[in-house]
């Protein structure tokens, strides 16, 4: 099948799916209340990739979302970050001064990452960002072995949190919150004999954590060039990882996340982006890739993990992000998506916004223009 024979990308339907999810989710989704900010990111990210933020949403809504996001920024003894949502706090009227968080309401590392991206997608000016507080929060989350926990007082620690710490530091252009050498050492210990990286040092290689490892190693301050050999990845690790990643592309075109598992649309991003970062994106069978994701489109909008599966914002966003990394020349114009920054996982336009507004010092300013 050539690119031109593929069905179209149902852009309007997918934007609709995410827009609906931004308003409400059914009771079957009660459990993701604890990750509300992340769901928001997948929805905003989808609209950003489809170029529909301004088309599909009103300024009053965007203002409301920005306000809600800032409402989750919280400061206290361990520094500053963003909570997943306000579900564990009694309602405080917008505009009033926040209290310091208690041990129950601490910020969450992964949510802090998604909050910054979401605010950038919504083109916030980041005047309210407590940069120093965030740096202190990162320090509070790093453990002896170099890994990071989701919260300063505990929680699981694995490569996902390391990636978020690296991405945040990179966006702030301030690495003082991270002991990079120790973190890199932890990442390298997660390298699996299969190739790829597991969640923790003894774990099986997983697509998601492989992306987290590689993106982190390429974001690290000592690495300036995506195209040069990375000092933290040995030739052997690189070769094994490429081999493992490529073997995870099934004949359907989709990628699986682990040895001997079924294809799942989200791994098209985690594995696809990993190959892209390693500079071997050309080795991916793009037509099959696109064909798989096309078949995961749900008839009423949204993209699911496999054909016929129910969609959700997570799979919708990651499928589109994967498609943005692997454009196909002769495909229908509906498949044309903006360029993606694979290391931060956002469009290049949003990445530019981040570079101009998130760091304390930007290229233009001679002195800090904000606190």
């Amino acid at each position, binding site marked *: 099948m050539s690119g031109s024979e593929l069905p179209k990308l149902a852009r309007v339907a997918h934007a609709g799916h995410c827009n609906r999810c931004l308003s409400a989710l059914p*009771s079957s989704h*009660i459990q993701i209340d604890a990750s509300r900010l992340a769901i928001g990111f997948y929805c905003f990210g989808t609209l950003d990739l489809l170029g529909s933020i301004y088309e599909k949403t009103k300024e009053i809504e965007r203002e409301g979302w920005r306000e809600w996001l800032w409402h989750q920024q919280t400061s206290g003894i361990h520094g500053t970050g963003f909570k997943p949502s306000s579900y564990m706090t009694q309602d405080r009227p917008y505009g009033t001064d926040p209290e310091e968080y208690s*041990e*129950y*309401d601490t910020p969450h590392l992964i949510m802090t990452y998604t909050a910054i991206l979401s605010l950038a997608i919504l083109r916030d000016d980041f005047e309210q960002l407590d940069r120093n507080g965030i740096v202190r929060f990162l320090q509070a989350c790093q453990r002896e072995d170099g890994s990071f926990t989701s919260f300063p007082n505990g929680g699981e620690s694995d490569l996902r949190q390391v990636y978020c710490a690296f991405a945040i530091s990179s966006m702030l252009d301030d690495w003082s919150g991270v002991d990079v050498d120790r973190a890199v050492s932890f990442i390298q210990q997660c390298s699996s004999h299969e190739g790829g990286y597991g969640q923790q040092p003894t774990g099986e290689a997983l697509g998601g954590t492989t992306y987290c490892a590689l993106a982190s190693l390429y974001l690290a301050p000592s690495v300036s060039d995506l195209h040069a050999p990375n000092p933290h990845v040995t030739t052997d690790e690189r070769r094994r990882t490429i081999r493992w990643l490529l073997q995870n592309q099934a004949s359907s075109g989709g990628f699986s996340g682990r040895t001997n598992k079924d294809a799942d649309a989200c791994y098209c991003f985690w594995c696809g982006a990993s190959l892209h970062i390693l500079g071997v994106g050309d*080795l*991916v*069978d793009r037509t099959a890739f696109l064909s798989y994701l096309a078949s995961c489109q749900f008839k009423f909008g949204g993209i699911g993990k496999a054909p016929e599966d129910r969609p959700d914002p997570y799979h919708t966003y990651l499928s589109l992000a994967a498609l943005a990394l692997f454009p196909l020349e002769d495909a229908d114009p509906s498949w044309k998506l903006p360029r993606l920054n694979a290391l931060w996982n956002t469009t290049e336009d949003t990445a530019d916004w981040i570079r101009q507004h998130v760091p304390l010092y930007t290229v233009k300013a001679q002195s800090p223009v904000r606190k």
Partner: protein
Amino acid sequence: MHGVKRVQYSQAALEAKKQRDHDKLKAYLALSDDVIARKSHDMSNEAFELTTRLLRMNPEFYTVWNYRRDMFIESLFPQRSPSEVNELLSDDLSLTFELLKQHPKVYGIWNHRRWCLEHIPDGPSPDDVNGYRNSTWNKELFVVEKMLDADARNFHAWNYRRYILATMPFPPPPKSELAYTTRKIEANFSNFSAWHQRSKVLTTLWETGELDRVKSIEEEFELVRNAMYTDPDDQSVWIYHAWLIGNGNYAARLQFEITSIQELLDEQPDSKWCMESLVRYKRLLIEKHAENLGDKKALVDSCLELLAKLRDIDPPRRRRYDEIAEGIRSGNEMQ
């Protein structure tokens, strides 16, 4: 008339479902608000029961797990005997087991289990301070086995299994874990998680000298050869085989395996994994044992022939095979 009735019935059912959804959400939100209002000051039994109800509805609510643990430490444990504390923790272990059966991948539940295990008190008596601990930790292996029976690839469960073996006061000997992986592998060769665990356990046994590495590797090659012949399409087997080969410094072993895999390929001429592995191991021979090679050109030609066949039978990786072929032709090191 019949058709109209059916439409009405399904509409009513839809309405009922909507109402149930609405009620469920309302109950959840009310309960959630109640717990939130209490958390800063209420350490009572009543509050504790509310957290139980809330966690049953939403076990991802990690802050409620935190609140629950605070209640244990601040109000439920103090002034209770070790036997009562042990009882409370056993109850929570039962609760989390029940929740894990419905939500096997929720981090918060696994974390709470670990916390409970780590807080088991000394007892039951001054002469037997580890009694409670031993009995509870020993049961954990049983619990994680049940989880793995339900889903042999649940990496949360495998990570947890490794945590138990590393932390429990009197772990079973590594050889017994080796036997566990044998059982899991024999039940299903596709269970890569079991092969993976096996590689970890063997590494430990070799390091401590409990198993003779050379002899053990021989036996592993035998095991994997059986698996290969039984199911040559199974990726797990080939990845494990590659692990056994390692960096390919042992030329005789490489030659032997190449011959063995070639025999399998003769029987199964379309086996992608056979071909891919042959290319891989022949390249290792070329790269690492060039001085001892009789006919290097024959090896190179064989690789190119295999890669050409692989292009046909494994189209998703066509470009990869082309790249490898190019590397071999130009004599470059393996990329």
